[in-house]
């Protein structure tokens, strides 16, 4: 259980990096890449939380989140292409 808490802390620090890159990022493509990565970190955190809270239903959220993440990334790519930042 201690390891799971440590993993959650590391994932939270990774999300701080995402927030920093979204704020700083020179182009829109940087922000889109950071959001894509933020989705990955979120999925990993939900999977770890399913074990930590001992509720297997949360695993289904990972499956749905994977699909949503892919669609969001492709939509952001269209947006970056259109905007010509």
């Amino acid at each position, binding site marked *: 259980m201690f*390891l*799971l808490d440590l*993993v959650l802390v*590391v*994932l939270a*620090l*990774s999300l701080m*990096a*995402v927030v*920093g*890159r979204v704020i700083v990022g020179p*182009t*829109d*493509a*940087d922000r*889109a*890449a*950071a959001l*894509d*990565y933020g989705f*990955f*970190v979120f*999925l*990993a955190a939900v*999977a*770890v939380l*399913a*074990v930590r809270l001992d509720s*297997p239903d949360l*695993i*289904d959220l*990972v*499956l749905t989140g*994977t*699909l949503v*993440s*892919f669609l969001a*990334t*492709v939509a*952001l*790519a*269209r947006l*970056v*292409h259109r*905007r*010509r*930042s």
Partner: protein
Amino acid sequence: MIRALAASVLLVAGTGLIAVSALGLIRLPDVYNRMNAVAKAGSLGVVCVLFAVLLLMPGVRTAVVVLVAAGLQLVSAPVGGYALARAAYRAGSPLADATRYDELGGRVPGAGRQDGAG
């Protein structure tokens, strides 16, 4: 016991990959390098964490969901990263100074290195 040990190893490996990816997101010089770190290390880290979760919560339901989610992640993350990098190049994101080869240089209007040095 051995299952918990294997799950711990997978969990540490996945989280380490995700942390390295976060470091790359902060430190790497241009958007293509950052996208490289994110799409590869990030997706592999998520898959490692998912398999660790499968070892910690064994069962048919968890196994099906984890296998489908890991497969989708391994297929969709590189495609998403590729789409994003292509869009970034076509939108004219600047290349890092250390870039030595730009094979698309000058072939895509309004993209890549601006001085045409290729």
